[in-house]
């Protein structure tokens, strides 16, 4: 056995305990200290429930849109050759690299009523910034790389012989895509969409700028955590944090299962 097991594992565990485990147990204990009654009241308050819809619902739509356009983008980037392809490919990672607050400010500056696209849409009575649609846009922005980067390698690895076989057997291009290519992409697409969803649920920086943060309409759950902290309602904040943590953890679990499925499919293909 290669040496270093005790050293590396020990260091990893100590580091993780200090940075993650101990603080998270503080969160759970703080939630518990408020009592069940208080916990339930906090997490089912009407304003909080409305924020769940904004956070989880809009993230869902954003993830679906990313699923569709991300797959198209991945397909185009892998299969076609056109000028600007490499730049486009590099741009995909932009939402990773750009601090989310900058993304939020930029999107607000584009879609606010007196700016750029917002100006164009104002005569038609369409508002984007400071509405739920604006939040949806921000969440789509930050989720895009997850879908493209998960699906891209799978398209690259697709064996061309199955496509050729399908063509030999008389399938047209659409049938080939739908019956042969799509099924082998599906696990990767689902993984990418789940990743994008998980990221969108936790997103904060870009959303607060474009959301306008109106209670019941464009207020996300993380923002409520902050306002609870602001009022020194630590156990309330911990309760909401606990709910979000549970949701994040289940999404993570689902994505790990999907990824295992994905790897298995890749192994067979």
């Amino acid at each position, binding site marked *: 056995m290669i040496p270093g097991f005790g050293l590396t594992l020990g260091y990893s565990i100590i580091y993780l305990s200090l940075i993650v485990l101990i603080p998270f147990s503080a969160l759970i204990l703080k939630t518990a200290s408020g009592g069940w009654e208080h916990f339930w009241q906090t997490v089912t308050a009407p304003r909080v429930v409305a924020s769940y819809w904004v956070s989880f619902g809009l993230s869902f739509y954003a993830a679906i849109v990313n699923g569709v356009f991300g797959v198209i983008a991945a397909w185009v980037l892998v299969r076609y050759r056109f000028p600007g392809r490499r730049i486009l490919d590099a741009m995909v990672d932009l939402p990773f690299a750009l601090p989310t607050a900058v993304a939020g400010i930029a999107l607000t*500056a584009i879609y606010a009523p007196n700016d750029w696209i917002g100006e164009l849409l104002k005569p038609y009575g369409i508002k984007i910034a400071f509405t739920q649609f604006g939040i949806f846009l921000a969440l789509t922005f930050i989720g895009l790389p997850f879908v493209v980067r998960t699906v891209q390698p799978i398209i690259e690895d697709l064996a061309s012989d199955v496509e050729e076989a399908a063509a030999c057997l008389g399938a047209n291009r659409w049938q080939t895509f739908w019956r042969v290519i799509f099924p082998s992409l599906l696990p990767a697409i689902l993984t990418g969409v789940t990743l994008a969803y998980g990221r969108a649920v936790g997103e904060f920086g870009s959303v607060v700028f474009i959301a306008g943060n109106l209670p019941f309409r464009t207020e996300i759950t993380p923002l409520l955590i902050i306002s609870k902290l602001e009022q020194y309602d630590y156990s309330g904040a911990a309760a909401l944090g606990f709910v979000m943590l549970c949701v994040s953890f289940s999404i993570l679990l689902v994505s790990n299962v999907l990824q295992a499925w994905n790897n298995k499919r890749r192994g067979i293909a």
Partner: protein
Amino acid sequence: MAGVSTLSLNANRPPRRATADALWIKILLTATTFVFFALFLFLPLFVVFQMAFSKGVPLFIHAFQDPYTIKAIQLTLLVAVIAVPLNTIFGLAAAWSVTRYRFTGRLFLITLIDLPLWVSPVIGGLIYVLVFGAQGWFGPWLREHDIRIIFAVPGIVLATVFVTFPFVARGLIPLMQAQGIKEEEAALTLGANGWQIFFRITLPKIKWGLLYGVILCNARAMGGIWRGLGCIGSHSRTNEHDAATRRDSLQRVSIRRRVCRRLSSRCSGNNHPIH
């Protein structure tokens, strides 16, 4: 690859291969991608630069001479200088232990490493407030000894470490898994010790992956600098807005300030330009 040709229109070209897409589909999909990217990626990036330089380069440079900005940039650099090496060492140790050995709880460890990518940064801040804040576990003890963590530099470092620690490990784990341990085992049978194996065999093999992880980690840790630029731009723009937008901007600003103050998250120290 399925015989992909360029998108050039050529009347004399041979018939399309059965595994290639029709030209109109290619054009449609490529155009869709371009439009989607233009709306979601190019435009925001362009606006960021446009805002930062909207009052001309002198104002942009002037913003950097503001003592608050200088202080903020110094703080950001300091935080990155502390957080990035810590996370690099952790990333190496974690990737080594997870890919070289099989042990119970291995998957749990990998999941824990992933966690900060999933959890809202707000929760990242919240947990440290709960541990070190005035009402937290160590709050009274820290106050007695006059040590400030929350709303001070150590808090910012902690929050940055939390947000950025997965990047190095996440980059290295798949790489080291794919490379396998044959060469390391060969070195071991030839009598190399652990450090020799690491520095002579593993490190050269993973150096690019490691570099990429460190750069990503650093980009996230230093994010505050760019955030500062964005704030300067948006602030100067508010003058031109009507009252309604100004109110919205102010609301945004006050939220920002609250976030910065309460959580002393990554953005702390960079909030000065908008005060």
